[in-house]
């Protein structure tokens, strides 16, 4: 057995386990820790590790979603943080928590990491909540909601001849059809495109709003091989950001995704799988272009964010789904992408590879 083909870092680090909750429109009967805990137990059980044996724990979430201050300190109760553990948190998607954990392992300060993230959007109105992440001087006072901003991007793509409404509908339909085999997805099978939410985006072009959790275990070197039959080695990972102002950017392209992909070694060899964090159908068009993905690549075989988009977890789920395909031998080299901010402002790209027989 040979190691990962294109490793470029001090230590070989792999995703050795992935778990996620069922993603649901509402979870009123569960507090956040009650929602998170079963997924933590499941991902640890997959490795046989106990919480106390994990070298570093990192989580991603946002208090704005459920309106609960310092909610991540409450969900830490689900980890069992006694005796005291080495722990951190990002107010971002869990993909960035995974990045921090990966760096921690690269430094040699940990050999394993538990990464989890969750979003409970059901208590609030997520379209309005997300306006609070915008520039407070020029944008937030106008309350432009997340669907409106994505619709501006979609119209720019249509004007540029990059897509049209039937093509967007086809992306939505393919995603929900592929989600038919994903028991955790919120939307599966045929879902009507529906009316315009903000034209040109219809209901079907938008992600479902829901609550959900994801968790991943990372491990380095030989330990990864002990914990997982076929580890998903992270042979490249990078994240880049663009200007916040939408008027400063070409909304039909994602140069930050392309740059992150270059630094992650994505273009060095072909991939067979791409898990793209494209909450809106139109954003898949942008990401396919940025990565130059052809028809031979399976894009979002899990159904992607159009089938389940728990805020703060949907990006980590892309890494987890890509890793899970490698674990079960359905992929040899996959790319996973996560995004944050309006209209794909910030993008993370990870390349995952399995050992070759």
């Amino acid at each position, binding site marked *: 057995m040979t190691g990962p083909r294109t490793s470029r870092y001090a230590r070989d680090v792999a995703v050795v386990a992935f778990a996620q909750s069922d993603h649901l429109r509402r979870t*009123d*009967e*569960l*507090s*956040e*820790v*009650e929602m998170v*805990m079963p997924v*933590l*137990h499941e991902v640890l059980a997959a490795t046989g590790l106990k*919480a106390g044996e994990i070298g570093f724990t990192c989580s991603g979430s946002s208090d*704005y979603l*459920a*309106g*609960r201050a310092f909610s991540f300190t*409450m969900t*830490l*109760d*689900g*980890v*069992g*943080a*006694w005796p005291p553990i080495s722990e951190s948190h990002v107010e971002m998607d869990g993909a960035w928590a995974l990045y921090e954990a990966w760096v921690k392992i690269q430094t040699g300060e940990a050999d394993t990491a538990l990464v989890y993230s969750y979003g409970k959007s059901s*208590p*609030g*109105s997520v*379209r*309005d*909540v997300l306006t*609070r992440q915008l520039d*407070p*001087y*020029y*944008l*937030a*006072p*106008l*309350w*432009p*909601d997340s669907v*409106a*901003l994505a*619709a*501006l*991007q*979609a*119209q*720019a793509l249509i*004007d540029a001849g990059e897509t049209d409404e039937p093509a967007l509908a086809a992306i939505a339909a393919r995603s929900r059809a592929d989600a038919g085999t994903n028991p955790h997805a919120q939307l599966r099978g045929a879902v009507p495109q529906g009316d*315009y939410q*903000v*034209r*040109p*985006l219809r209901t079907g072009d938008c992600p479902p709003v829901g609550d959900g959790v994801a968790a991943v275990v990372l491990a380095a070197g030989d330990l990864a091989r002990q914990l997982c039959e076929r580890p998903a080695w992270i042979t490249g990972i990078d994240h880049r950001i663009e*200007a916040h*102002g*939408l*008027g*400063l950017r070409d*909304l039909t392209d994602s140069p930050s995704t392309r740059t992150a992909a270059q630094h992650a070694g994505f273009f060095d060899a072909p991939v067979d799988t791409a898990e793209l964090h494209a909450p809106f159908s139109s954003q898949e068009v942008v990401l396919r272009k940025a990565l130059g993905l052809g028809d031979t690549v399976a894009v979002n075989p899990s159904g992607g964010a159009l089938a389940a988009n728990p805020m703060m977890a949907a990006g980590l789920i892309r890494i987890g789904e890509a890793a899970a395909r490698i674990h079960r031998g359905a992929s040899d080299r996959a790319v996973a992408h996560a995004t944050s901010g309006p209209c794909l402002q910030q993008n993370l790209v990870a390349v995952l590879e399995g050992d070759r027989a």
Partner: protein
Amino acid sequence: MTAASPPEVLRAPLVVEFPFTRSLGPVQSAFLTGLRESVVLGVKTSDGRVVVPPVEYDPVTSEEIRDLVEVAATGTVTTWAWNDRPRPNQPLGTPFAWALVKLDGADTALLHALDAPGPDAVRTGMRVRVRWAAERTGAITDIACFEPYEDAPDAPAPAPGAGPAPHDGVFEDAVTGIVAEARLDYVYSPGRAQTAYINALSEQRTVGERCPSCHKVYVPPRGACPTCGVATTDQVEVGPAGTVTTFCIVNIKAKNLDIEVPYVYAHIALDGAGLALHGRIGGIPYDQVRMGLRVEPVWTEGGRYPDHYRPTGEPDADYDAYKELI
């Protein structure tokens, strides 16, 4: 001890408000003050592009940029999206288009609302102009919205080649800050464990949950044992009496709180609980409260939780009986 069963889910409105007061840099101050005076300013980047709305640092080189220019209040739509159902706080209450507008003289586009009769009246490339708000304070909302401009007989085409004129950015009584008001409305639902706790309180009972691993009884329960990281499942009724484990004497009157000072606020370990909760001690002079004092809850008519705790009259508890709970 009874096995926990899913209780009725409780819900309550939760309003979060955060009126941030934000200061402005020199470029933002000039821009927002300019809007108050019906003047739109941009800023020149190192390579000569005009950015509107202006930023303080070059988005490409990150150099500090301060060269202001005045651009027109007319421009061209670069992309748009029709919003049939305006949401609270958005610029217009009737259906409108969101639009990115490149003002004449600018190289970048500004996001705002465009008031148009319907989606068929909007297209990329259409000419629009600023509709100023009647009352202007130095905020992005001083632009009420954009409106179509192409049918206006006096609409001048943008002058070719003529760059926007420099502007010193100096206005009388410049705006130096904004108050960014925000209110978000939620429906709070406390989850299984806390719902059971709150429901029991309404029957004047205090119910905790036991960790199946370390057997500690959490009051109030949050559904998980933070030491073991497992779900607490078994409900345990605790109290009603308990022991003061530690306390403090409050000498400062809290705003909107109708309690005479000094009074005692204490940690109270209810009988059977694995940790102390806190409450006010009454029915005893403040300087006679002590560690080990035995207390019981006092409920007021219709109260959802004990108003305070008062001495039971029992002998004080031995230190050894509560030392692990301090």
